[in-house]
């Protein structure tokens, strides 16, 4: 036998699966002694379940899904997960139908022309529609535990739109959001690349705010494995992280973007048009630089604060403990240090200067040391008593 370890890793067809696709296609996994099979999955729930039962060794995951996986939610195969690597920063956006964008411009032209578009125009339009007895506008996200869901909810609530009462939130699988926007089944969505760019290029949607404006350098997907798998196969995990870190650095290089786009556009990967994939890469998404791969504790705590805010978790959960159990910057650092100069030293040492404080578009400060206080401080929320 070759001596290579066999791994099966799952992904969802989105631009931010790039580190996995690159590590496999360019042979980074093989160079680390890993024989990897990539398995394209149809839903996040299936990713979660397959990783939980061991049908997948690891996967491209929504960061909040990894945090929620160990909470023993009713009906889920509870399996504590680890996030030893962040796959990307930014990448998603809030997009509305061109019809809704026109209606928003009509009620609030200044708001729509602002550098940072808030939901103020939407709040005004909803007020007007209520007077006319019009049905609530429908917005789609891809999963209840996702950056997209929390970003959309935050953005709506910041302008006084209650996401649970003033609009209807639904879940729509990413490959269908553009078709639903076109058919009028939904009025807007928050989803990852490349689907916002697809909606724009097909002339059916308009982007209102990108993740990089909502929260510059904000978190998104992670590479997730179960705690049990990581304990059983520490060497394979380190090897996989090394390959993924090298792949992330490769994917960030503008000189490699043409090749990356060609890889991603393959039907067995993302299967979208090369032009739209290229656009999102250029404008938004970060895989490696600015310590993008480091699973930051403050990111985990922000996600957990939003779970508290929207009533997904109860008052007794120890947020710090969950963050420290799931987010494992130590595993990232260990792997990154062993890769060598491909990684900026600043991101791998524990005594590196702290990151800039999280700066969301509204300027509201987030103190990771008081994430429950933060969660309770919003005018709109469903914090459980």
């Amino acid at each position, binding site marked *: 036998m070759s001596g290579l370890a066999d791994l099966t890793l799952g992904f969802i067809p989105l631009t931010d699966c790039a580190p996995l696709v690159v590590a496999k296609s360019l042979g980074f996994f093989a160079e680390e002694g890993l024989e990897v099979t990539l398995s394209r999955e*149809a*839903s996040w729930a*299936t990713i979660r*379940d397959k990783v939980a*039962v061991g049908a997948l060794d690891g996967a491209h995951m929504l960061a909040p899904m990894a945090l929620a996986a160990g909470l023993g939610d009713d*009906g889920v195969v509870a399996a504590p997960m680890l996030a030893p690597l962040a796959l990307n920063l930014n990448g998603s956006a809030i997009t509305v139908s061109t019809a809704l964008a026109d209606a928003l411009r009509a009620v609030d032209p200044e708001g729509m022309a602002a550098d940072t578009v808030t939901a103020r125009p939407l709040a005004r339009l909803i007020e007007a529609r209520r007077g006319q007895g019009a049905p609530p506008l429908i917005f789609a996200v891809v*999963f209840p535990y996702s950056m997209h869901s929390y970003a959309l909810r935050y953005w709506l609530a910041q302008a006084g739109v209650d996401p649970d009462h003033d609009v209807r939130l639904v*879940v729509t*699988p990413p490959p269908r959001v553009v078709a639903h926007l076109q058919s009028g089944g939904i009025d807007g969505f928050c989803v990852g690349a490349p689907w916002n760019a697809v909606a724009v290029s097909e002339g059916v949607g308009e982007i209102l705010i990108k993740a990089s404006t909502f929260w510059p350098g904000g978190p998104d997907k992670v590479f997730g494995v179960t705690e049990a798998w990581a304990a059983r196969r520490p060497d394979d995990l380190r090897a996989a992280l090394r390959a993924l870190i090298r792949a992330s650095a490769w994917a960030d290089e503008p000189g490699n973007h043409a090749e990356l786009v060609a890889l991603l556009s393959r039907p067995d990967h993302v299967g979208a048009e090369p032009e739209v994939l290229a656009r999102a890469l250029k404008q938004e998404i970060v895989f490696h630089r600015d310590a993008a791969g480091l699973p930051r504790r403050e990111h985990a705590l922000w996600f957990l604060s939003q779970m508290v805010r929207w*009533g997904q978790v109860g008052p007794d959960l120890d947020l710090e403990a969950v963050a420290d159990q799931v987010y494992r910057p130590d595993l990232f650092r260990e792997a990154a240090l062993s890769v060598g100069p491909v990684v900026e030293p600043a991101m791998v040492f524990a005594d590196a200067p702290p990151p800039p404080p999280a700066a969301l578009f509204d300027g509201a400060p987030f103190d990771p040391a008081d994430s429950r206080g933060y969660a309770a401080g919003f005018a709109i929320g469903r914090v459980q008593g």
Partner: protein
Amino acid sequence: MRVLVIDPDPARAALVAEGLAGVDPLQVRQATTFDEREVLEFAPDVVVIASDSPDRDILESLRESSVSNPRPVVMFVDRSEPGLAEQAVRAGVAAYIVDGLSPARVRPILDVAMSRFALTQQLRGDLAKAKADLESRKTVERAKGLLMKERGLDEDGAYRLLRKLAMDKGRPIGAVAADLLAFANILKGDAS
């Protein structure tokens, strides 16, 4: 009890629905995608969904306690039977039930779904193998024809030569025949 089967593969869904018809007093409906209006109208007690359906995440979202959803669904995991959930995940099927339904009533439904999924997989495997066999037989026929023409062998002689090549190389006769045809094409390409 009303069961909705959501499966992007209509043939497999039909097989599952047919299997379920033998269980309990059941009303079974099948769909390739989740359609909210249809679900509201049919009001299923159990939704059986293929894990290769992207609509699973919609069902997942209905588990969230939401204002607009008075009948929350839960994913069916029988805790009294460890390993069942794993078996279902590996079989590629998940079940969601309306809260309050007894797990004992869901179990036979999931069993039928899992066995029918396994059956489909086996049928597909058999079909793929039959296709490959047929393909290999065709390749062997063509390679035989080539040898007969180029080497002046009769049919039996051509087959024996192929079989000898296969035995010498320790490879299947279909693969040796395919190599032979590929080389012949290259040589033909060079000559022209």
